[in-house]
């Protein structure tokens, strides 16, 4: 299929990139050390989602060091720290939000921040307290590009989508196992700047095991991914300026494998996909 001209440029990557098992699984060349992973990763993909910022408040100096090791056109999404999503303390969260913004400042300054991902836990239901908290949090993060991922289906209402759209905040479209209570896999565009998609895998048995190795152990079939391209990604891409697609099924390097497939499928569908530095033509690589 010939590539049609389209304003929306999509980047596909993985949730996190620093996994030693990816070397054993053949994604990283043998002998790749921790420090060598991002340079290699950025030669394959054009974006990554920083997972460690959920565990640890980002520190500007570390973020700055890290971004310098990636390719020149590489972008980052940063997951909001757990003290703002899962372990919220009423008296502390505002300070934590300020610290988070300080931590990711190097990405903002260099124009490499694709989005901040606010991943809310399953127990974060749509209550008055939580609604107010989310509104206040989004206000604190404004004007950063923000995507919100719900894991509780009580948020799947038109009023929520409208509220996000009014704030120009993206609703993360999520593929996960079909389990009761989980947010449905809808592709609703609430932000015209970008859309945000996360593939967690469909391992229903391991989803609530509390062990990431079970939860995210899944290998997508090509038909499952092409269904997403056709039903959700292409319609959102028709209306947004950019799109970010991430694979979180990191176990045994299934995520980078599926991400590569997704890049091919998007490209076949005539959508513009930005890959890593190795995938770009020489002119684009040098900013020409």
């Amino acid at each position, binding site marked *: 299929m010939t590539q049609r001209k389209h304003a929306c440029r999509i980047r596909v990557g993985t949730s996190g990139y620093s996994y030693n098992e990816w070397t054993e699984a053949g994604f990283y060349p043998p002998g790749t050390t*921790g420090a*060598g992973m991002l340079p290699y990763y950025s030669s394959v993909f054009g974006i990554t989602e920083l997972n460690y910022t959920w565990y640890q408040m980002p520190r500007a100096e570390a973020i700055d060091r890290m971004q310098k090791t990636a390719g020149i056109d590489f972008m980052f999404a940063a997951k909001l720290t757990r003290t703002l999503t899962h372990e919220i303390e009423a008296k502390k969260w505002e300070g934590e939000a300020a610290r988070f913004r300080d931590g990711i400042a190097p990405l903002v300054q260099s124009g490499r921040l694709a989005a901040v991902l606010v991943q809310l836990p399953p127990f974060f239901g749509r209550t008055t307290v939580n609604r107010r908290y989310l509104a206040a949090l989004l206000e604190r993060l404004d004007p950063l590009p923000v995507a919100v991922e719900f894991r509780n289906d009580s948020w799947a209402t038109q009023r929520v989508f409208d509220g996000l759209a009014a704030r120009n905040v993206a609703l993360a479209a999520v593929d996960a196992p079909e389990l009761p209570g989980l947010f449905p896999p809808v592709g609703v565009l609430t932000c015209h700047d970008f859309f945000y998609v996360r593939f967690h895998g469909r391992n229903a048995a391991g989803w609530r095991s509390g062990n990431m190795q079970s939860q995210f152990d899944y290998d997508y079939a090509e038909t499952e991914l092409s269904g997403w391209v056709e039903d959700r990604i292409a319609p959102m891409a028709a209306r947004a300026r950019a799109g970010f697609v991430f694979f979180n099924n990191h176990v045994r390097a299934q995520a980078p494998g599926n991400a590569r497939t997704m890049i091919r499928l998007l490209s076949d569908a005539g959508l513009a996909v930005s890959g890593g530095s190795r995938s770009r033509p020489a002119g684009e690589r040098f900013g020409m």
Partner: protein
Amino acid sequence: MGAGQARENGYAGLRGRPRTVVHLNIADFAVAVERQMDPRLRDRPVIVAAGAGARSAVHDMSEEAYRAGIRKAMPLRAALCRCRDAAVLPLHPDRYARAMSALFKEAYAYSPLVEPGRMDGHLFVDITGTGRIFGPPVDVAWRMYRAVKKRFGFDPIWSVASNKLVAKVATRLVKPVGEYVVGEGEENEFMAPVSLDLVPGIRRDERIRLAGFNLVLAGQVAAVGKEHLETVFGARAGRIHDAVRGADAAPVAPAGSDPEAIGVSRTTGSDRLEIRPVERALYEMTEEIGAYLRARQAAARTLSICVFYPDGMRTCRKLSVHPPSAGDAGLFETARTLLYMAWTRRVRLAGIRLSCPGTTGRSAQLELFGGMDGHLRHEALSDAVDRVRERFGAGSVRTGRMLEASA
């Protein structure tokens, strides 16, 4: 950073893989344990004091007390002048030991390589190679943290790094609460802005010497280079150079294998400044260590002593045992020299700890000419005493020195 430098930094672990070490550190451990026992102590300054009466000294204090200017080993009287509303509690080593044991069990679920500290709320866990079972290291560390918080109510500082030294510095940086993940290969950059006060393995006199050269940060010392450090610090230069660059090849010693664990402590109850009772206590400790070594066909290469004064001060010294020995007499000779080296203040002692940080296998090779002599003879005598005690009880054979004690 390439694989070569990775090896140089000393974090290449099993089969050359980079190591992943998690450090859990419960700040102000003694206070944290006491607060678990008595919730009324929360949100108020707390001091745990060693000893009793006028010579009592601060063993540990809460963050509130620290902010009021109280420090470890400070005389209790002086501490209370700075923080009059502090709750003062006596030491409860049994409680701290129980808490450490519970923490150990929690971490042991993730790795057999768990190195607990000495009842101080520190745990090092080597989780290298567990990724396929438990997931990414940072997630494992967070799960340990969450479990400790949920089950015991502690709020440990946690860090993830490629070796113990960097992991320890990382928790020191975020004390009293927080977390720090140092990526593999980031050790140099991480250490560069760190104050030398926070770098383990650099002695106080060395820090003072370095400050004299206007070197106060780890990165500044690293930039000087090992050769220049050698001219000032001699054989210690390599150790210092490694430490300031975050290089540490020391393994996470599995519980029970800690050589320092071959050690015994005694409190010296007398209120008088007398050498004989202390020597007797030392001999008794030497006998315990000797019996432990002989039972394992091991011999001491090094002995270490720490003497504790009633005001909380302590002095530690270490000596090689030449030749390595497991005989009581040979060990006592070295131990007594150590005691004289360490006990330099004319103040009575509150306690002594004698340990054996370096061991080796016992030599089975006898002298080619002549009979048994020297340390071999002493070892043979100790072996014979061990056999008698095994058969007839610990008090069946005693040395003259110990008879004097009971007279």
